[in-house]
């Protein structure tokens, strides 16, 4: 508990416990497997939102291309799973058995070279982290070293998202094109489709999510996190103080990319599917919206944002198949207009003070650690 009290302040600790209770206990006990699997899908976006909190909320770097990294991670995972699903006996109906079905439809007769390493799970896991990480490093270095930032950076990330989508759609013999990679079946011989596998995958994902929360929180509490925030507020002062602003920005951007990629890989596993519709501009902007709705300054807020927005998407579309998009749009506008800091801002402004008062009235007055600056150790 000593570590916790240093690692999280009281309200964060509460946020942590509530989220842990909901994800580990309440949802698995109260939902059937189908709905639980949907929550697993929503949580894959929570990884992206978590990355955006670091990079946008703290670092002030708005990326409108997180779908790129989500997609890269997802495609790496999907390539491994697709190769395993395309064994010779599963694909004997094809003209060339043993290669993924979409290659066969596109008259490709042997497995392309860049697909070969994805026979190995170890390579795949490394690729999920490294491919998006290195890609972000290249973009980040190219941009931030030249002091391209703000709106221009956002536009460029968006262009990257568009380019990658066109590339994937255009090279359908190698990527599955607009159909994406479907019918993913097993992971090292373990069937990922039945109900019990979905439950296990859900828990693996939640554990990974909490690991990522831990990393994000750790970064936030170190000097690094402080510099990120300082950079957001007054970039020049940080630069004049002798810090290399570009390097810190690159770091934040790469972390966000890696988180998004982990989300993408979990998506491929949970949904059994990967398609270019998660890579493009629209999904990338949606990811920013989840974060904005939840609150970009708050790790837990952003995660709740991803869960709740996607939940709203599902339930609205089930109830009003023709009109749901309008409802969702209205919800976004309302939240962002009325609560610029998102749901977490709402919580901090209205709910948290009441809880504090409740505690304060029970304890001796003056005990509250709420006044301690955000992120500071509680002593």
């Amino acid at each position, binding site marked *: 508990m000593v570590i916790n009290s240093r690692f999280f302040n009281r309200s964060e600790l509460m946020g942590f416990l509530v989220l842990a209770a909901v994800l580990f206990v309440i949802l698995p006990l109260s939902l*059937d*497997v*189908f709905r639980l699997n*949907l929550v697993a*899908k929503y949580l894959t976006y929570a990884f992206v939102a978590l990355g955006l909190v670091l990079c946008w909320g703290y670092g002030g770097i708005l990326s409108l291309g997180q779908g790129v990294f989500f997609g890269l991670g997802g495609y790496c995972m999907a390539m491994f799973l697709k190769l395993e699903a395309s064994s010779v006996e599963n694909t004997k*109906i094809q*003209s060339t058995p043993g290669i993924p079905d*979409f290659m066969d*439809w*596109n*008259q490709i007769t042997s497995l392309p070279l860049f697909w070969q390493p994805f026979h190995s799970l170890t390579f795949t896991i490394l690729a999920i982290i490294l491919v998006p990480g290195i890609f972000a490093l290249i973009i980040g270095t190219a941009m931030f070293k030249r002091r391209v930032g703000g709106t221009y950076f956002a536009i460029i990330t968006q262009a990257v998202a568009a380019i990658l989508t*066109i590339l994937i*759609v*255009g090279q*359908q013999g190698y990527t599955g*094109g*607009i*159909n*994406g990679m*479907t*019918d993913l*079946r097993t992971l090292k011989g373990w069937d990922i*489709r039945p109900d019990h596998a979905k439950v296990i995958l859900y828990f693996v994902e939640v554990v990974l999510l909490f690991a990522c929360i831990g990393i994000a929180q750790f970064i936030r509490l170190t000097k690094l996190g402080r510099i990120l925030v300082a950079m957001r507020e007054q970039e020049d002062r940080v630069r004049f103080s002798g810090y290399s602003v570009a390097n810190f920005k690159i770091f934040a951007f790469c972390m966000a990319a890696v988180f998004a990629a982990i989300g993408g890989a979990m998506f491929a596993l949970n*949904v*059994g*599917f990967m*398609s270019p*519709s*998660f890579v493009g501009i629209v999904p990338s902007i949606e990811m920013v919206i989840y974060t904005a709705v939840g609150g970009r300054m708050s790790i837990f807020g952003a995660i709740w944002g991803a869960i709740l927005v996607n939940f709203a998407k*599902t339930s609205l*579309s*089930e109830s009003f*198949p*023709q009109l*749901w*998009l309008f409802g969702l749009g209205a919800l976004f506008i309302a939240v962002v207009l009325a609560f610029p800091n998102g749901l977490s801002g709402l919580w901090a402004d209205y709910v948290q003070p009441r809880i504090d008062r409740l505690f304060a009235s029970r304890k001796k007055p003056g005990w509250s650690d709420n006044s301690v600056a955000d992120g500071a150790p509680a002593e």
Partner: protein
Amino acid sequence: MSDEANKGLLSPLRRKLLMGMAAVPAITMLPRASFAQAPATSAVNTTGLAVTDTEVTVGILHSATGTMAISETGSIEAEKLAIEQINAMGGVLGRKIKFIQEDGASDWPTFAEKAKKLLVNDKVAAIMGCWTSASRKAVLPVMEQYNGMLYYPTFYEGLEQSKNVIYTGQEATQQILAGLNWIAKEKGAKSFFFIGSDYIWPRTSNKIARKHVENVLKGKVVGEEYYPLGNTQFNSVINKIKLTKPDVIFTDVVGGSNVAFYKQLKAAGIDLSKQALLTISVTEDEIDGIGGENIAGAYACMKYFQSLDNPNNKSFVPAFKKMWGEKTVIGDVTQAAYLGPWLWKLTVEKAGSFDIDKIAAASPGIEFKGAPEGYVRIHENHHLWSKTRVGRAKLDGQFELIYETADLVEPDPFPKGYQ
């Protein structure tokens, strides 16, 4: 499992017995008769589908929002019309059809999610749905895993066959070959230029068309070009067409791109009454957007046109317009979507059961004589035997029937020599 199987074997017999027993009192006691027509739920539904004594639930899964909504709306409307007509006739095995509509939102993973929801949560007895190949590919593993039954309406590329899908549209060879034969014979066409949207259906269709042109018709393909979905700039390909002067332009450009393509073709001075153009992707629905004056004279090759002159179609078109408005047009896929609920009803009645396995087994050989396109029959490979027709686009946006195959064309999703 074996218990269920036994019950399954008994159920047609039990149904006959029930009906037989009912027949005698039915003469004197009419109310009992209608009750006896509906066999017990436990007998017709052994796998826990959403079937009650009075109702059976099916799913409708199309894009009501997003870029595909414009195409898929017709399918939704046709399926609802069919369901209403079936209900008016007394339903299926004495049960009214209730439907749950879900929105695929033009997003393939959403299709998969909603299909799963319909099968797992709602336990629907069948799903009428999907439109693009991508959405079907996304839904297919779900249908197979949870053992559902999908009635898929769109003409598509073939190379697929599933116990859990009935393909009510034509597969590529069925649609294309007759049209190519006709145009080669009628126009003496030897050189062809292919233009398509860049995804699996046009690519596979063109692959089949190329093999047919080169190997069977002994002609030549002088160009083959693909454009991304939604592309609106066709000037460069139109220039190439002008240079190569093909006998036939063969197109499978889909969706909104068609509007730009035909307008630019016209603007470039290519007169479709002189230059033969055969499309396999433009139905009355697309002409609504393209404008009849831009495409008049082009040939389309598919299995249904709204203008077909047969008794079934003469009652279908007014019924559709009565339900959905005078201005609606009915394209090939809309008609194919209309077949879905009917084929399902006929299959269920033949099987005497709603069980998916029994429907899958009973499907081959099911005949539907009331189809607006004429007579159709389900093949062993779960596709439909159907005629292929060529129509010429008129100024008013309708097609005039020019040619139809004498016999039903056999569906061949894995065509030998065309892969």
